[in-house]
């Protein structure tokens, strides 16, 4: 089980010489738990900090505050020998499949490489594992003897999944894994991912801006805004009975087939500049429900009896969960 507690990461942006540099929080006080076999989706607009959260969870970035625990032990510093040992249990799949593979390496070699890096198995065992991984993602022997550019986008993304699963990771972070793929192929890759999870008890952090895909795979959804989680809960609740005004706007913005001229909640303005976050609730400048309190006082996450958390002064959550 992977868990992170109060993670924060900020960058210093140097200003002109007469001004002090500013601090920009990419991730601010984020706590997440990823139990085995579960998928948590992180959603939000670009710049909300969802990718950075994923990188922090894998130890690819070092947090300013907070920590990451894998099965009860703290994740060691990145680059250290202990961290490298753990890396095979944590894998990352990202958006552009072609960029994830070495263009001069055949697919089967690319899938075998992690086994060599982590010193797993004898050559015979490695060949078996590679074969099993390729079969699981539905690539033929002939396809796996080709180079990445000789395959279609969907096939390459499935090869990337095979490479990520060959070390049998406990946690897989998928950062917009479907956005480079066409709809008819998305479904193939998505089903592959679901199949892999079932087989390997793997936990998935699924980072995506596409709520339609999120609904297909996630057990829980966390909505990020300006580096913070503003709502989190079971998928069907968050997507069909959203509590936070921002989540409502996100859900309402999803295009729906056959819903011509439907009324939607259109958010005024653009996502705010993270280097100048608003006072109070970070969402209040775009919120139609904002009251005076929202401008001065940042709401903390409150959790409903059904396990849906929301950081909003105005949202009605019914009976609050007892802590």
């Amino acid at each position, binding site marked *: 089980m992977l868990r992170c507690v109060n993670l924060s990461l900020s960058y210093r942006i140097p200003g002109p010489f007469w001004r002090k540099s500013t601090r920009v929080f990419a991730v601010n006080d984020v706590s997440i738990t990823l139990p085995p076999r579960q998928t948590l989706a992180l959603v939000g607009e670009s710049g909300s900090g969802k990718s950075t959260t994923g990188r922090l969870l894998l130890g690819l970035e070092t947090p300013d505050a907070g920590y990451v625990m894998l099965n009860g032990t703290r994740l060691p510093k990145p680059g250290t020998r202990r961290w490298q040992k753990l890396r095979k249990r944590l894998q990352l799949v990202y958006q552009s499949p072609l960029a994830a593979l070495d263009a001069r390496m055949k697919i089967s070699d690319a899938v075998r490489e992690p086994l060599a890096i982590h010193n797993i198995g004898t050559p015979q065992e490695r060949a078996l594992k590679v074969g099993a991984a390729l079969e699981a993602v539905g690539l033929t022997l002939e396809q796996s003897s080709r180079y990445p550019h000789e395959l279609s986008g969907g096939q390459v993304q499935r090869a990337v999944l095979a490479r990520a699963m060959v070390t049998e990771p406990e946690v897989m972070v998928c950062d917009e894994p479907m956005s480079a793929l066409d709809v008819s192929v998305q*479904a193939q890759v998505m*089903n592959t991912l679901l199949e892999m999870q079932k087989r390997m008890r793997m936990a998935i952090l699924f980072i995506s801006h596409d709520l*339609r895909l999120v609904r297909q795979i996630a057990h829980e959804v966390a909505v990020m805004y300006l580096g913070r989680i503003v709502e989190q809960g079971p998928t069907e609740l968050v997507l069909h009975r959203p509590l936070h005004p921002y989540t409502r706007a996100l859900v309402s913005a999803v*295009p729906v087939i056959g*819903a*011509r001229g439907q009324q*939607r909640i259109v958010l005024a303005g653009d996502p705010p500049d993270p280097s100048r976050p608003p006072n109070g609730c970070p969402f209040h400048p775009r919120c139609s429900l904002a009251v005076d309190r929202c401008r001065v006082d940042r709401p903390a996450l409150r959790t409903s009896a059904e396990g849906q958390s929301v950081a909003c002064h105005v949202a009605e959550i019914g009976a609050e969960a007892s802590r």
Partner: protein
Amino acid sequence: MEDHVQPLLSIDNLHVDFGGVEAVRDLSLTLERGQTLGVVGESGSGKSASWLAALGLIGTQASCYGSVRLHGMEILNADKRVLTQVRGRRIAIVFQDPTSALNPLRSIGWQIKEALRLHRGLSGRPLQQETERLLTRVGIADAARRKNALPHEMSGGQNQRVMIAMALAGEPEILVADEPTTALDSTIQAQILDLLRDIQRETGMALVLISHDLAVVSEVCDQVAVMYAGQIIESAPTAQLFAKPLHPYTKGLLAAQPTLDGPARPMRPIRGTTPRPDEMPSGCSFAPRCDLMITPCRRPQTLRHVAPSRSVACVRVEMEG
């Protein structure tokens, strides 16, 4: 007089060929005044290439055959003089990535003024006023001040609004929007789609919305053309297409689509992949992926009318009526 029966734009048997590789094959369609047409297809389906070719924007490596007529006037492979009169003025286009389509060194106001001077010959006070009116119309608040901003000082969504304002500057009869919201966040996508829909209603111009997302076109367009491997394989009024898709590819696409509404159901993929343009099957281009394939599918399929405003390129549909 003839103008009344002529469609606004008619494309007949358009072929686009990149050195022997056909990106668009035998594409025919008509666009009426005030019509909103959605063109959907996956990457490589020819949805953008066909419209870029029609407007003479596809570059010199491509050869284009067939006919594209605006009010009966041939514009395919037309003289640069003719195209300059048409592009921007009568047919405007908005691209996917606004930030790279704008000049980074000129203010947004300057760029809109350039279009207004060129297409409508405005100058002086009317030029200023129209620039500010257009910026306000596309939803940029405080236009008098913001018109001096450079593209990098604006967000992606605002730059797409500027692109739309520039497209509107020539008061076009047709606006072609090629994946106008793909590079934008979903909340901004919703804003831009609403804006396009409102402006289309207000001005009565025809709108061609090219997108990979069926749901996006369904929210804006009256008619949808589905493209696959360089061909239109089905065209229908929006409501009919989604209520009763006819072509197996359209059906497959709808089944593969994840949805937010309705009961959760697994996404059903279409097996195989889109054929590469240089390995196109000789018969129906979808046949190798189609569960309904029969012998006649080995012959090329062309689009046939099956009902008013409905046509489909599938021999099974024709046989079964």
